[in-house]
């Protein structure tokens, strides 16, 4: 008869035997158990063994069997995980005319360059200026949409100053107002889909810095950095609009958590403005 206390202890300490199973595709699955901080840890590794034969000179072969000494004394053969590890893969491809900037020139990089070369085209009159600078922006709607003038006519039919014609209607409620002063909040508002909201921006940040940082990912159409009216310092948030939503998504992913001016940037897609 055995002492039950001993038995219990043994149970807790006894670790199952490690198992090695050979898989059909030539790999092996190794299951090992070990104790860590009083807990049983099960490790399952799936490995593929390849035998690489290498011919070395006898001196090297002899040295391979030297017994370990110093801090390694008594350790088993093979690399120990506490001193030796394998780092991530590095692509090293020597090339002529190598430049620091050429290092990670990828497809997106090229695309960005193409965007820079692209001509500026007005969305309203297709002229070579920005849409905001268009001389016709108050009279015409962007191409492919009903023109502002037509809209006005439709409004005129029901009376330009509201339904009754006599009572005062504030400008922002006038239907025709959409075509003039209230334009920005109206139908032709900016495409918020590709706009990022950047928060936790250093108060010494400049719009140009942000533009430089973000134009790495694509064509930046607008940068707005909120500034304090009195001090002229940044308030800590900014909006960055991209021409393409995919680029915005990429920038969002890459720049979120980026350290800039001692602060960690927080980047997310801007929410639809409430107006």
């Amino acid at each position, binding site marked *: 008869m055995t002492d039950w206390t001993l038995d219990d202890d043994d149970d807790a300490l006894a670790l199952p035997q490690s198992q090695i199973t050979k898989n059909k595709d030539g790999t092996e699955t190794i299951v090992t158990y070990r104790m860590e901080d009083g807990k049983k840890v099960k490790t399952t590794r799936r490995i593929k063994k390849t035998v690489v034969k290498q011919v070395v000179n006898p001196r090297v072969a002899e*040295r391979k069997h030297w017994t370990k000494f110093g801090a*390694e004394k008594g350790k088993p053969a093979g690399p120990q995980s506490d001193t*030796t590890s*394998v*780092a*991530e*893969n590095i692509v090293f*491809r*020597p090339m002529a005319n190598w430049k620091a900037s050429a290092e990670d020139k990828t497809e997106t990089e090229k695309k960005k360059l193409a965007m820079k070369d692209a001509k500026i085209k007005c969305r309203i009159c297709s002229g070579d200026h920005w849409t905001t600078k268009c001389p016709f922006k108050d009279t015409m709607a962007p191409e492919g949409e009903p023109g502002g003038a037509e809209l006005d006519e439709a409004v005129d039919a029901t009376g330009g100053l509201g339904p009754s014609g006599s009572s005062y209607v504030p400008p922002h409620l006038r239907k025709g107002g959409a075509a003039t002063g209230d334009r920005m909040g109206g139908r032709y508002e900016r495409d918020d889909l590709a706009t990022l909201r950047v928060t936790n921006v250093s108060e010494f940040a400049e719009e140009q810095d942000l533009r430089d940082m973000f134009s790495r990912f694509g064509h930046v159409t607008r940068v707005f950095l909120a500034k304090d009216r009195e001090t002229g310092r940044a308030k800590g948030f900014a909006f960055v609009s991209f021409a393409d939503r995919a680029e915005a998504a990429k920038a969002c992913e890459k720049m979120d958590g980026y350290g800039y001016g001692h602060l960690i940037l927080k980047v997310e897609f801007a929410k639809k403005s409430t107006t």
Partner: protein
Amino acid sequence: MRPILLSGHERALTQVKYNKDGDIIFSVSKDHVVGAWFSYNGERLGTYHGHQGALWTVDVDPTTTFLATGGADNTMRLWNVQTGKLLKTWEFGSSIKRVEFSSDGSKLLGVTEKRTGHLSTIVVYDIVQDVDAEQTDEQSLRIVCDESKATVAGFSYGAKWIIAGHEDGSVSQYDVKGGELLDNVMVHEPDMPITDMQWAPDRTYFITASKDKTAKLISTKDLNVMKSYNTDTPLNSAAITPVKDYIILGGGQAAMDVTTTNARQGKFEARFYHKIFEEEIGRVRGHFGPLNYVAVHPLGTGYCSGGEDGYVRVHHFDKPYFDFMYEVEREQARM
């Protein structure tokens, strides 16, 4: 290329060296310990304990029997490579900045630091080629560098001359027999210390790295600057690759200056230059701190770098490295 990361040291690496067959890497660091590693898988063979201060330098003799080290505890030590046993300790008045065996292993030189009351010297000992024999205390040569302290030194081919690099950016050639100064040439910017000097396989020329952000390829015989490699960062080390005509440079902003500079890139990369065309052909990233030393596998199959971050990274080159050729080289190969 998947580098092997050797993380056995607790402080900044100061030098790493391959033995002549390239199967073992020796590393020294400021943590007082010498490490020996198998280069093919990164397995640690052992450590050598005994030094009482930061280590600056290590070298192994051609037969991988003796290991010499020098450090800030003012001693130069000789070890049995296989067992890790300390064979001999030479004591000096100041720290040892560089040790090097001659190409046949019969001589060992040490460079001592300049300190109040001590001038910088280059000392040479004859090594008895037997691990059980008593090594001599007697210096076979002592060169005093009174003008500018020596930072690096080594034996030329056939142990004919001793070539030394100095703190003021010059290199000197000394006669091995009597220790006379034969030549002194200013190769780097004045007062920019030479940080490293490594030999070509046949020791007919060598490369120096300097804080002036350049590395120079210099002939041993007449100290003629043959090639110059310009970078944008202070250099700590330069190596010449066999097989392919490349140069590997390592450096980076010193740790004390890092906070005052643009942190995006401390420029902690190994830079590859073409030896003949003096043009940069690529970089290898990985270290978190300046590279203190780069060493090339004697057979040209890989290199390793020791960094201020306390890691040794062992790289085995893959195909693109060996395939790369300039157009003119390719034409040459076709003919």
